[in-house]
């Protein structure tokens, strides 16, 4: 399999076929991810997690994925305890620790950090989020959740609701969906529309895009409703944030009249965008999506480290 030994820095590093391969492999990981089968595919392998920015679930799901396949992980979870604090560059840090394990999972606050790390390392680098940049494994998880609900990724209408300007998960997901010929419905407050360069990329990719500011209409159109968190830290003052944050909220009345198979996804954590009453709805798929973080990362690690898809 072509992914063996490769970096995963951005979702566009993968072809459509490679994405399908990862998703198929992740379905075969489900019994292991649930603990029904005990895996030993990565027995003896060591994964280095270098997290220079706080993240609980991404780190835990990588560690769990490695453990479920019989491998081990070593983790830097607090950059204040590393030599970066002593002024060592990321380049040097990665150059050194890349010699220890078999691959590195990197989370870093600066955009482009993963690409720099890839130059410093002769082992695979998996980008687990570089600032406002890329977070490709999250996109694979989003796609896995859609694929699981519909059995396919083609021909679906995906409504992206919320902060389409700063939400990096949305940009990566939109680019990936473009490979599969989805229709995108964009619904956001005027100040948080999709940035022009991302929009241009999508237009070039030939994906159908409609802007539907009216939230109920955008929701009715959806096979998949992908909701994002408005990132409070991006706003200068609280009044501006409050105005935008209150402009949409997914609650049971909003979901009345949607198609029976329609699913609601959210990369989590949520703040107020989805009311807790939606959790009991058959449409709520965001916790399932979060669970898929483990089998998807298992599949990816197995492919990259061992070149195996089961």
């Amino acid at each position: 399999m072509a992914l063996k030994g490769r970096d995963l820095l951005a979702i566009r590093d993968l072809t459509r076929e490679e994405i399908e391969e990862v998703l198929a492999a992740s379905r075969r990981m489900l019994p292991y991810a649930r603990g029904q089968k005990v895996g030993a595919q990565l027995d003896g392998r060591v994964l280095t997690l270098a997290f220079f920015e706080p993240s609980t679930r991404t780190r835990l799901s990588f560690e769990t994925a490695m453990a479920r396949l019989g491998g081990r992980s070593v983790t830097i979870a607090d950059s204040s305890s590393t030599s970066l604090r002593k002024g060592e560059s990321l380049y040097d840090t990665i150059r050194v620790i890349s010699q220890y394990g078999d691959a590195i999972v990197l989370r870093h606050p600066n955009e482009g950090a993963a690409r720099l790390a890839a130059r410093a390392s002769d082992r695979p680098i998996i980008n687990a989020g570089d600032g406002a940049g890329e977070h490709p494994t999250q996109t694979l998880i989003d796609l896995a959740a859609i694929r699981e609900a519909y059995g396919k990724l083609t021909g679906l209408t995906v409504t992206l609701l919320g902060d389409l300007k700063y939400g990096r998960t949305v940009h990566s997901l939109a680019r990936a969906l473009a490979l599969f010929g989805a229709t995108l419905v964009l619904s956001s407050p005027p100040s948080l529309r999709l940035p022009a360069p991302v929009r241009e990329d999508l237009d070039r990719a030939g994906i159908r895009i409609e802007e539907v500011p009216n939230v109920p209409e955008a929701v009715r159109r959806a096979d998949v409703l992908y909701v994002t968190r408005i990132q409070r830290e991006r706003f200068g003052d609280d009044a501006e944030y409050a105005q935008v944050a209150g402009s949409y909220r997914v609650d049971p009345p909003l979901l009345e009249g949607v198609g029976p198979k329609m699913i609601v996804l959210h990369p989590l954590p949520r703040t107020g965008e989805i009311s807790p009453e939606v959790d009991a709805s058959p449409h709520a798929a965001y916790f399932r999506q979060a669970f898929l973080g483990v089998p998807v990362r298992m599949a990816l690690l197995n492919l990259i480290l061992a070149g195996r898809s089961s």
Partner: protein
Amino acid sequence: MTAVRELKLTPIRNGTVIDHIGSGLALEVLRIIGIEGREGGEGGSTVSVAMHVPSQKIGWKDIVKVENMELSPRKLNAIALIAPTATVSIIREQRVREKRIVALPDRIDGVLKCPNPSCITNQPEPVESEFEVIQRAPVVLRCAFCERRVDDFLHHLA
């Protein structure tokens, strides 16, 4: 060589002549090629600049002459970012040894600073900035690290 130009700047024996720079852009060209006027230390390069010189080709132009230095093609090609009409002559013993129009390369390394303050290239890392040319007319660059797009190069010279 026209009579007018010979009056403004004398020919050099050895070095690099950048001609047909758009009028008013000579100082930016010097910044792009990283010439500060102190090159070579004591007795080093003399740098001559002529601005707003009549040109048969482009109306008005600027000229830059850097003595005793042959600038690398990498730096010279980056001039195309702001002065696509510029020509470069390498002079040895008062003879033009090489003359060509600057050509925008596919990648611009080390000349610009990424406008994204959070880009890894703006941190204390042992790495040069790197931009890919993603559009040629008008020129748009993209940071090879953080993917930020740049089209106002004059504001982002390193």
